[in-house]
């Protein structure tokens, strides 16, 4: 690996310095002369008929420029997309409604929009809009919502928006063979992404009549969706994506962009609209709550023979990406285990809760909680070591996924990562406190990186070698903080033999940068990394060809590095890069290239029995924790956390570790404290004092162990890590709680109260 100069090195990110100096301009750090302020009027009921909306008073308020309702939106109802180019059929099409019309489906739904001279006036005007509601009963529990005769959330005849299945073997036969069967139900709650930057941006119309939207978005391809809402040609809407203050899937759907576009279109003035924290928690997507009923059967030696699961998830009020999330959940439902007989059924149901959609892990973290808890239960029941039972059953190279049957032909690191993570816990910590019990937990998992193959994913990148030896990159890649942009610089620097300081990159602009696809699905290292690699290598090929001619050597003998073209094994023989560039330019040899990388393409699967290749590849990992539980208060302290993943190749180890460490704590919050509490559709945790995430004082010692098998589909054999990194820590913690105090917490978060109620049943029963 020593041939790399820049790749594989823990170097500072391209964007780090500007951020450290406070110079980076996020979405809100921008204003235009004459800018108006936008405000959204949100529904105050989770379910209600809109009898009438009177905007007269709001419009009369001095300083108000526009008050818009559904009837002002040219195409108020379109289809939820997330940047895909392939047709995927009705099974995945959800309604995208810009403003509530006739009926509201969740508390917080946008009912009207205002633009005014100041934020205060906009707020006052929104309060002057008179909406006459007739409250409706609504339905808030997905199980209730599934029943015949349930209140209908939408306009359809059922609340079930999708039903997926997949199976292999013979489930009846499997359970008949089983010597031990465990059955249980697990529940996970709504959670928020809790990025520190809320949703927002600034929009304006330029002299070409193009609506420009400067916004933090993971999917700048939404420019097409915004254009369709306005009935404009796609090329009349432009997204200028900013570096995001966190995304985690919450900026994957359209958030405020349509509102911005409508307001600027109607007023012909620049408009700024930013959500407050409360608005953000109230009305952007949440992670899907799931109710998961599982049954597993095993032989006495611990070998799994059957797994049956029924997953019911709450889509909230609109589908958004629910079908996709549920597809991920279905594929992940049997975990990383070889099980001959499997049957999974997944239902996703509309309710009058806040809608759910993408959240880091995209449907994987939820079933992981269930199956990894059950594996642990099985291990205890059969008195097998937690590591041993996983080693015995996990998928290995050449084996296949038990849900879809997708075969793994590259290295499957599960046994390796499981062992490394478990062993790295080291010696058990001694705790003096007589009320504290120590416990350990392990969880393993797999998660896809790259989009579902039937979406026909592509990414593009433009690279140009300048006449002075500097490099310019243009890529539509959005950066949500993971270092996506910097990664492309590193690849180009490596391939073209120039230092990072000579790279300039323009990113995330739908008009000027080649579209690179979404920063979702842990796909950018893989997809845009490969597109950049392809473009840079094309230029490198031309440079080397020219240098070979100039030096009169075989091009295969030449390498590029440190701004030189060098003869392999003879570093004294070289040409400066500049000289070769000059020669190329003189002869008109193109030192620029726009390349496209295409992922593998497959057909849309049969959704009632999803089989075959659905994802390009998977990342394998294991997480282990040591915790203490206070047996009198139920408080859990995570003492040590080990996260071990096969990342293929760590292009920037600092960024990869950053994902693994950050993902672990993101998952720790899910396990122990995070929940958007909704009571009959009303959010009871509207701010960061109620919706709590871990602080620095809550985090344990975290150790990230990187395995680099080189077996990934990304550049240099890299795999994706962003989402896999957070997806199995919750069950590891639940397993550690069981190990410490012998109670199995089956619904997240594992609060002190839940633990105490389980530990002190007698005390609480009488009360």
């Amino acid at each position, binding site marked *: 690996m020593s041939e790399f100069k820049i790749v594989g090195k823990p170097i500072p990110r391209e964007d780090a310095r500007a951020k450290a100096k*406070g110079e980076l301009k996020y979405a809100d750090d921008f204003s235009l002369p004459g800018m108006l302020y936008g405000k959204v009027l949100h529904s105050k009921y989770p379910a209600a008929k809109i009898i009438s909306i009177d905007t007269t008073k709001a419009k009369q308020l001095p300083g108000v420029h526009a008050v818009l309702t559904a009837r002002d939106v040219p195409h108020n109802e379109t289809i939820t997309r997330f940047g895909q180019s392939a047709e995927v059929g009705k099974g995945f099409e959800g309604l995208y409604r810009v403003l509530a019309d006739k009926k509201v489906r969740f508390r917080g739904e946008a009912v009207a929009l205002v633009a005014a001279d100041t934020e205060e006036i906009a707020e006052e005007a929104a309060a002057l809009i008179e909406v006459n509601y007739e409250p409706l009963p609504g339905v808030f529990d997905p199980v209730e919502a599934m029943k015949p005769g349930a209140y209908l959330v939408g306009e359809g005849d059922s609340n079930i928006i999708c039903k997926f299945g997949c199976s292999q073997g013979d489930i009846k036969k499997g359970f008949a063979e089983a010597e031990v069967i465990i059955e249980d139900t697990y529940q996970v709650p709504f959670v928020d992404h809790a990025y520190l930057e809320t949703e927002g941006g600034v929009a304006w119309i330029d002299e070409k009549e193009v609506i420009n939207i400067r916004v933090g978005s993971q999917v700048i391809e939404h420019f097409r969706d915004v254009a369709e809402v306005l009935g404009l040609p796609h090329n009349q809407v432009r997204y200028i994506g900013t570096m995001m*203050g966190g995304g985690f899937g919450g900026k994957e759907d359209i958030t405020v962009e349509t509102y911005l576009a409508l307001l600027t279109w109607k007023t012909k003035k620049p408009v700024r609209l930013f959500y407050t924290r409360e608005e953000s928690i109230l009305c952007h997507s949440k992670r899907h709550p799931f109710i998961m009923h599982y049954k597993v059967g095993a032989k006495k030696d611990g070998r799994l023979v059957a797994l049956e699961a029924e997953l019911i998830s709450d889509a909230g009020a609109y589908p958004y990406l629910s079908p996709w999330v549920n597809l991920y959940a279905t594929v992940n439902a049997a975990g990383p285990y070889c099980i001959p007989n499997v049957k999974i059924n997944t239902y996703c149901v509309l309710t009058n809760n806040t809608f759910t959609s993408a959240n880091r892990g995209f449907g994987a973290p939820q079933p992981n909680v269930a199956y990894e808890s059950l594996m642990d239960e099985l291990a205890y029941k059969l008195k097998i070591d937690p590591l041993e039972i996983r080693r015995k059953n996990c998928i290995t190279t050449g084996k296949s996924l038990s849900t879809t049957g997708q075969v793994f032909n590259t290295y499957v690191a599960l046994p390796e990562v499981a062992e490394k993570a478990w062993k790295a816990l080291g010696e058990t910590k001694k705790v003096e406190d007589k009320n504290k019990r120590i416990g350990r937990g392990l969880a393993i998992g797999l998660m896809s990186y790259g989009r579902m193959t039937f979406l026909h994913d592509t990414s593009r990148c433009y690279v140009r070698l300048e006449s002075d030896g500097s490099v310019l990159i243009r890529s539509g890649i959005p950066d949500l903080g993971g270092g996506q942009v910097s990664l492309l610089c590193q690849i180009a620097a490596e391939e073209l033999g120039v230092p990072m300081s000579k790279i300039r990159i323009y990113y995330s602009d739908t008009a000027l940068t080649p579209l690179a696809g979404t920063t979702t699905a842990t796909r950018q290292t893989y997809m845009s990394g490969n597109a950049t690699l392809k473009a840079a290598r094309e230029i490198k090929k031309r440079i080397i060809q020219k240098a070979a001619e100039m030096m009169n050597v075989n091009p295969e003998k030449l390498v590029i590095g440190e701004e030189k073209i060098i003869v392999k094994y003879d570093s004294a023989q070289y040409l400066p890069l500049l000289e070769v560039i000059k020669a190329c330019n003189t002869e008109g040899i193109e030192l620029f290239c726009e390349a496209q990388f295409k992922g593998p393409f497959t057909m849309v699967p049969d959704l009632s029995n999803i089989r075959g290749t659905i994802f390009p590849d998977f990342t394998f990992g294991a997480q282990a924790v040591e915790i203490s539980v206070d047996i009198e208060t139920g408080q859990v302290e995570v003492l040590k956390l080990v996260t071990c993943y096969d990342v293929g190749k760590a292009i920037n180890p600092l960024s990869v570790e950053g994902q693994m460490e950050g993902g672990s704590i993101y998952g720790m919050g899910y396990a122990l404290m995070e929940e958007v509490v909704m009571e009959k559709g009303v959010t009871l945790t509207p701010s960061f004092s109620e919706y709590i995430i871990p602080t620095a004082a809550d985090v344990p010692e975290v150790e990230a162990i990187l395995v680099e098998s080189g077996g990934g589909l990304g550049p240099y054999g890299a795999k994706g890590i962003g989402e896999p990194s957070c997806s199995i820590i919750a069950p590891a913690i639940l397993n550690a709680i069981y190990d410490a105090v012998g109670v199995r917490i089956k619904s997240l978060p594992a609060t002190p109260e839940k633990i105490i109620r389980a530990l002190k049943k007698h005390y609480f029963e009488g009360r």
Partner: protein
Amino acid sequence: MMEEYPIELTINGEKIVSTAKAEESLLRFLRRHGFYEVKGGCEKGDCGTCTVIMNGKAIKSCITLAGQANGKEILTVRGLEKEESGRKLQESFVQHGAIQCGFCTAGMLMTAKAYLDENHQPNKVEIRKAISGNLCRCTGYKKIVEAIYAVAEENQKSK
């Protein structure tokens, strides 16, 4: 007793003479005056992204009235560069990979600066407590703690 009142303060060494609205937070005042490096994350004191240093103490500018900064010296992340201790912290954050999305960084650096100015030999547990008013959703805090610790260690050595 005015809805708008005159205010005079020093921001990063520069004197600002202006007016503030009665209920205006220092955060909003700073951003209105172009100090966009000070970020708002919750505007209720629950996240720490808006942290600035006021007369040597790190505070949350969203729960500080602009008027409370009258006559005071404010330091934001863009003023850090002027002091060696500030530059060291900035560079350490960069080198340690302590910055991901960067939205908490401006506040986190200010907390770290004020803390290290008063505490010369902190251990990592103490650093974690010191930054416990600044949320970070990306990093899991590890690299931030390492970055601050490295500066504290370096300061010790150079003494």
